[in-house]
């Protein structure tokens, strides 16, 4: 039985398109007087956040509440990496509370996987971002946003669309999940980064890669800029923020080379001036604010499809 959403790679094309079409229906809810549906009445969703991420937590909280679930927010004090509260003890507590789903954000890659497979909890586990591994619901909301703009919200709508994902691919869980999901949906993904920020073994990913932003973006239908932390400079991944911006940042000059229909995305939080300039982020091409709205609808779809029936309709085995 499929119970968890741990990796975007666990989703089949049918799974992914079912989530997108369900999200499309649920997005309408935002325009109605009562923004609530009864599907998850009596179900308990726990937001288990070992890392601070107010935006993601609020998005999941709104999604669960709009489906009438009871929501418990559990901000674990410090990760167990710093020898705070251990994942195991926390999980056992949640199990005792009778959680139906645990939405987990954790600084350690694989923590949601561990939670789902350890036998500590019986609930569904939804990965809300783990270390430098994956962030599948972010990828789903990104895909949903592209699907609305580029694919007329139709099955197969992203087939053959060219998506450029630019920035710190090495440390980005968003890039990993997007590469897997967009490939599943038939899009052509190109990852653009300096060689130091490309993961080893990327040749085996279902993507193209490039070190040269200027040759990639004129052909792209969507350009997704990833956050680049200034601390990466200390690791010697690039010499200076200025050089990074010059080679891999999206500014007005580069934006002018985009096709008319091309959209600009960012999973947030943005480092304005580093990977994206303010005029680009605030331009009409930017769908960054819409990504937030879509996030709630997509997370509603995921929670509904995992918890709404006697058994989930999507997700990975295990």
């Amino acid at each position, binding site marked *: 039985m499929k119970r968890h959403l741990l990796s975007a790679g666990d989703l089949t094309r049918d799974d992914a398109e079912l989530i997108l079409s369900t999200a499309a229906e649920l997005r309408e809810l935002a325009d109605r007087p009562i923004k609530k549906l009864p599907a998850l009445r009596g179900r308990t969703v726990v937001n288990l956040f070992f890392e601070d991420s107010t935006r993601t937590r609020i998005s999941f909280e709104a999604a669960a509440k709009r489906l009438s679930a009871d929501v418990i927010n559990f901000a674990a004090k410090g990760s*167990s*990496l710093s020898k705070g509260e251990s*994942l195991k003890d926390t999980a056992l507590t949640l199990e005792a509370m009778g959680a139906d789903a645990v939405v987990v954000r954790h600084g350690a890659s694989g*923590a949601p996987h*561990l939670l789902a497979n350890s036998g500590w909890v019986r609930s569904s586990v939804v990965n809300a971002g783990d270390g430098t591994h994956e962030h599948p619901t972010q990828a789903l909301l990104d895909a949903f946003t592209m699907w609305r703009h580029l694919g007329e919200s139709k099955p197969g709508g992203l087939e053959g669309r060219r998506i450029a994902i630019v920035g710190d691919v090495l440390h980005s869980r968003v890039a990993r999940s997007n590469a897997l999901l967009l490939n599943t949906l038939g899009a052509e993904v190109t990852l653009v980064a300096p060689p130091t920020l490309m993961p080893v073994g990327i040749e085996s990913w279902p993507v193209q890669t490039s070190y040269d932003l200027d040759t990639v973006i004129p052909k792209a239908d969507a350009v997704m800029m990833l956050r680049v932390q200034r601390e990466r400079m200390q690791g010697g991944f690039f010499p200076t923020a200025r050089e990074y911006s010059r080679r891999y940042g999206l500014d007005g000059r580069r934006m002018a080379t985009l096709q008319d229909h091309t959209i600009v995305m960012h999973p947030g939080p943005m480092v304005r001036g580093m990977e994206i300039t303010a005029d680009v982020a605030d331009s009409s091409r930017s769908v960054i604010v819409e990504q937030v709205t879509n996030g709630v609808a997509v997370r509603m779809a995921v929670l509904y499809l995992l918890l709404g029936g006697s058994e989930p309709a999507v997700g990975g085995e295990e």
Partner: protein
Amino acid sequence: MSTTYLIKNVRVLGGEPTDLLLRDGVIADLGGRAASASERIETIDATGLIALPGLVDLHTHLREPGREDAETVETGTRAAAMGGFTAVHAMANTEPVADTAGVVEQVWRLGREAGFCDVYPVGAVTVGLQGEKLAELGAMADSAARVRVFSDDGKCVSDAVLMRRALEYVKAFDGVIAQHAQEPRLTEGAQMNEGELSGKLGLTGWPAVAEEAIIARDCLLAAHVGSRLHVCHVSTAGSVEIVRDAKRKGWDVTAEACPHHLILTDELAATYDPIYKVNPPLRTAADVEALRAGLADGTIDIVATDHAPHPHEDKDCEWAAAAFGMLGLETALSIVQATMVDPGLLDWAGVAERMSFAPARIGRVADHGRPIEVGEPANVVLYDPAARRTVDPTESASLSRNTPYRGMELPGRVVATFLRGRPTVLDGALV
């Protein structure tokens, strides 16, 4: 007066069946009938069993002093006996670190008291394993523990000058530096083998070059100063190639491989189960092949377990938070059978060389790793290669349960272990 054991129909090093008489701590007779009518004799029907010299492990973590919640000298040597070992070298990364004559003598004494196998403490190369200044290597060598193997294992002696000095210094007492080859800057935060999978799993990679670069440098240093170098837990095909090249040039370099690196691969990290987290990490299938070939042709001199016990809570957590290391003593011989003997890469005489004679030579241990001949110390293992068993961690003699082979069916079983003629294991159980 100790019991005399007559072991009947045993195949010494896998040869023709013969009888073996153990009396007064030595091998009293081989093939004859030297038992006198007056003495008390236990007869063991060893039909189908193989006799090997008591195994010698050059790389064991006994955790005492300091982490008695993970292992003690007593429990660790029990596990060793169950695995057919009669001597183990106890690594220095205890708390306090075994970097003084006092600590090494303490470990050595605990080993004598436990009595399940002989314990040879390894001395730290640098004070507190800090990699800054040499520990009192001479004092440890001169102590009751008579230390000959020095290692900062767990950490790499990465400073080239310090490594050079250590290699030179131990020549005075015929010591050897056993290097844990891991370039620290290339492995900051490293969690698993760097490759296709680490990129997918989002786990920081531990690149092969971080091991190979240190091994290459150390081989050159050892050659330059004319010293002995031992390379711990070689894990990559590139490392095997470097050691092979050093040997070809006639340099005094020896190397070890761990059982887990002979059978397990980095694919297991995809489970995110930290039971598979070890340092150096599990590598690719190609590396496993290269290690087996290197062990078969003698490029890799020995098998050493790197037995690394950890309490449950240090493994029952997120991968990145978990401790490195896995148990190895009780399963080593079975893994070597499965990966080397059964596929025809090594015969039982070869196993005796890799797991007893050679490690004893490298560690300068006089009373172990001796041939099974009349007059030699009666350190002998009886092993049933036809047996099969499924690994159950709860049955381990170790205090810890972190075996990566849980639920796996392995060939072979240690039936008996004799330490100086006295059984530590009989009928597959501790005595």
